[in-house]
């Protein structure tokens, strides 16, 4: 079977690399088409001769290029007028700026009030505009270049990811695939992708999701047919599941310069989009913890791990690089907070980060505002806590934040203020984590077919099934109206 993967960036393959390798190992020919200039394959895939990398168009090349972007970004913005997104100011604003930018052809920085302008539009009118834009999507023809590209690859199936970026062009690959009778599938890139990005402007024939929550999102938020959703779990964590600590506690504390006799609490930073001013919050968080009446908490070691996409600016002038034992990966440590027991430590690794694993493993509790690493902490079995930061618009103002909360069946304990947060953390330092709850969440959220069942082979199976969809079964779902009446 010939399989064409279309990825926004080659780096995105890291969430599916094991599935791709399995498919190649099973004898399928794989073309990884990247829409950025990076064509180097990751090490895991580079040596497999049946995997090749090719460049795919970043955008359409015809007269519809700008028009299609404008129409799609407008529809992406209209999505955030729905009452379910009433408090999602940040998401709405991002979509609004992108929509305006697609018209003006420049990056726009607009006051947040402007994106709220249409928020009070009643649902029937939202629905009418959505119906209009859905209809206009059907008027957008296949891009000749993209269609020629897809045809030249002669794939038996096309797999796309992430597809749902605001105004992304991957919809045009789905459009062309349909025109050519080639089945297409969406590999959902991450847990937030179906609720806080753009819409699926062209419906692929399959959607491969992590869990039942994403099935619900696919059906409710994207009007995607439930019978075409395949729950696979999240293959990106397979390697993390297999990891073991590479350091003893003694080694870890020695490397990081922390007292091995003190409990460790780790703070996992979120993306800049979620929390733009997180450094200020973290400084306050440290001083609030130090005010605890619980000596274990007030005197504990604190590790702050910057978000992988935003490590700059966190380290102090005392930053030092070190080599992580046994894996020889780089890590950086510093003490920028003027607190001897608080450090910033991170490594440049993105997936299966051994430094992250060891950090969480040696921690008694983990804290974060809203970040994927909270899931990795759960896989390691550590209790995770969060506290409402009113300045972090990407926290309560997103739908996916709530999925991890204990009150919603998740594993993260939410505190409304620092007093409650201190009490939760003090209890975590004093007791043992509720492993059953944490494991139940992990199973439901990332490995719904069983905690011990690796996901990559399931994804590979699902993609093979996609390749067997006959030309006549490549279905047309154009013009789907998303807004509920």
């Amino acid at each position: 079977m010939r399989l064409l993967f279309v990825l926004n960036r080659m780096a995105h393959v890291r969430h599916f690399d094991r599935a791709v390798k399995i498919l190649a190992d099973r004898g399928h020919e794989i073309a990884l088409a990247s829409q950025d200039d990076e064509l180097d394959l990751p090490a895991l895939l580079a040596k497999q001769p049946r995997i090749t990398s090719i460049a795919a168009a970043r955008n359409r090349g015809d007269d519809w290029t700008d028009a299609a972007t404008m129409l799609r970004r407008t529809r992406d913005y209209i999505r955030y007028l729905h009452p379910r997104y009433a408090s999602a100011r940040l998401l709405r604003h991002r979509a609004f700026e992108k929509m305006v930018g697609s018209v003006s052809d420049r990056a726009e920085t607009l006051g947040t009030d402007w994106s709220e302008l249409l928020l009070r539009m009643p649902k029937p009118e939202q629905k009418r505009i959505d119906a209009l834009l859905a209809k206009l999507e059907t008027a957008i023809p296949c891009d000749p270049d993209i269609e020629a590209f897809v045809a030249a690859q002669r794939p038996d199936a096309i797999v796309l990811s992430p597809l749902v970026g605001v105004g992304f062009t991957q919809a045009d690959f789905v459009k062309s695939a349909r025109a050519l009778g080639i089945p297409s599938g969406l590999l959902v890139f991450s847990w937030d992708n179906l609720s806080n990005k753009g819409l699926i402007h062209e419906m692929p024939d399959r959607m491969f999701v992590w869990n039942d929550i994403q099935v619900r999102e696919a059906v409710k938020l994207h009007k995607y047919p439930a019978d075409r959703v395949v729950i696979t779990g999240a293959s990106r964590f397979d390697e993390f599941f297999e990891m073991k600590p590479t350091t003893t506690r003694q080694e870890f504390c020695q490397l990081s310069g922390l007292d091995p006799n003190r409990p460790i609490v780790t703070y996992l930073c979120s993306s800049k989009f979620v929390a733009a001013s997180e450094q200020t919050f973290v400084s306050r968080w440290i001083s609030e913890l130090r005010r605890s009446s619980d000596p274990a908490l007030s005197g504990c070691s604190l590790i702050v791990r910057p978000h992988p996409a935003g490590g700059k600016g966190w380290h102090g002038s005392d930053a030092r690089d070190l080599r992580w034992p046994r894996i020889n990966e780089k890590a950086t440590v510093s003490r920028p907070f003027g607190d001897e027991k608080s450090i910033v430590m991170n490594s440049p690794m993105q997936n299966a980060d051994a430094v992250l694993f060891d950090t969480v493993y040696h921690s008694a509790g983990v804290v974060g505002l809203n970040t994927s690493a909270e899931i990795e902490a759960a896989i390691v079995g550590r209790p995770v806590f969060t506290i409402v930061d009113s300045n972090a618009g990407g926290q309560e103002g997103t739908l996916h934040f709530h999925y991890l909360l204990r009150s919603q069946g998740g594993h993260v304990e939410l505190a409304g203020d620092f007093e409650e947060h201190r009490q939760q953390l003090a209890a975590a330092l004093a007791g043992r984590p509720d492993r059953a709850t944490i494991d139940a969440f992990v199973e439901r959220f990332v490995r719904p077919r069983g905690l011990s069942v690796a996901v990559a082979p399931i994804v590979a199976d699902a993609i093979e099934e996609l390749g067997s969809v006959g030309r006549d079964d490549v279905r047309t779902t154009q013009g789907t109206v998303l807004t509920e009446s």
Partner: protein
Amino acid sequence: MRFLFQLPRTNVLRHFDSVVLALANDGHDITIATPGRSNDWPLPEAVQSHPRVICRTCPEVREDEWRDAATDFRTLVDCGHYLESPFFEAEKLRSRAFRTLAQTLTGERGRHLSTRCPSCNAKLVDGDFGSLRPALGEEATRRLKSLATLVENAIPSDPGRERFLQDERPDVVLVSPLVRFGSEQADWVKSARALGIPVGFPVFSWDNLTTKGVVHVLPDCVFVWNAVQKREATEYYGIPPEKVVITGAPRFDSFLALTPSIDREEHCRKFSFDPSASIVMYLCSSEFVAGHEVAFVEKWIDTIRQDSRLASCNILIRPHPRSVRQWADVDFNRFGRVGIAMSRVLNADQSLYDALHHSAAVVGLNTSAQIEAGILGKPVFTLLAPGFEDGQQGTLHFHYLLKEQGGFVEMAHDLDQHRNHLAGALRGDVDVEGIRQAVERFIRPHGWHQPATPILAEAICNLAPARSSAVRRWFTAR
């Protein structure tokens, strides 16, 4: 030949009835196609009884799945038109466009779209969105226009309209006014073109290319009044100049053919005027342009009466034919020698002709009747009236009649200047030849004695594969 006039309602034919008759009298078959339920004007007897003229009920809306989407999209494009730089100051027009959009989206008049202004927190409802003045830059305008063109081209021809046209088998289709917001007439142009039938667009009135929606689907030919409209068609709608034909305004041909039906004494007796004093006529504007004009007119009369040069003149108020209701209970008797001439006649109004004929000067804020006054060589005046800026300077067509723009209307910036203008006119200080030349350029650009009806009729015939100039010969011989 067979010509099909597609009109949203019969009322529109009043500007072209002479053309229909000219074509029919020349032996052509005419179909007047309107969606039956919106007919609001009885066709003239000569048209109705003509053996070569038939009326048909045509589809009103698309019958396919683009029915709502096409209308919604075109209304959006019409709104976007008023975000472009030439219309930046036209807030009233922009607000009307947004109001129409809100009505289209809500689908009913009882529902509204509202929000708060991000800058001042004022409540914005429907048309108020236009007051936000989100001006588009050059690049944004270009991109949006390109989007509009691509989408419009992708909207297919309506099968229902195609069937209707196939049944009627016209040689030429004529559509007017075409530029209504969200115009469904674009679909007639589209279907006619899909069937290879030439389409002509006779522009309905002097303001139509600057105060309405856009031409979503280009017809084969646009018939305009004058050079000003030709520039509008090319600049604002991107219509190639070779597709624009200047014909003049046939709607005034019948007015030009009128003669006074009453003498001055009788006219003065009718309104209890002093026959020895001059008459100043005030022509009211439409409600859209001037809203509730009664209070302004009252103040204007008071001002006139306070000027010794004007105090004794007779004043005749002519409410706009579509706004007579607000004048029903108005009583200006206390001023003395003030009459109100109500008429609902829209075209070739004999009473208007008589009234203008016996007037020494005419005043109006912004109305088509100013042109009729110009036709009779009367000096016409306007003044910038506080509260009516949006309906005057805020429209582009207001400027076309002004003297400084090559027109014949003298504009005053305040009441003092206005009184001076009027006093001068009553003294006889009037450039009748200048007025005539300006009117000629505006409604009969082919010459004062060249009626526009046969020119338009011939231009329509020229659109058809087999051409004929017999119409012109017939009209001239008549």
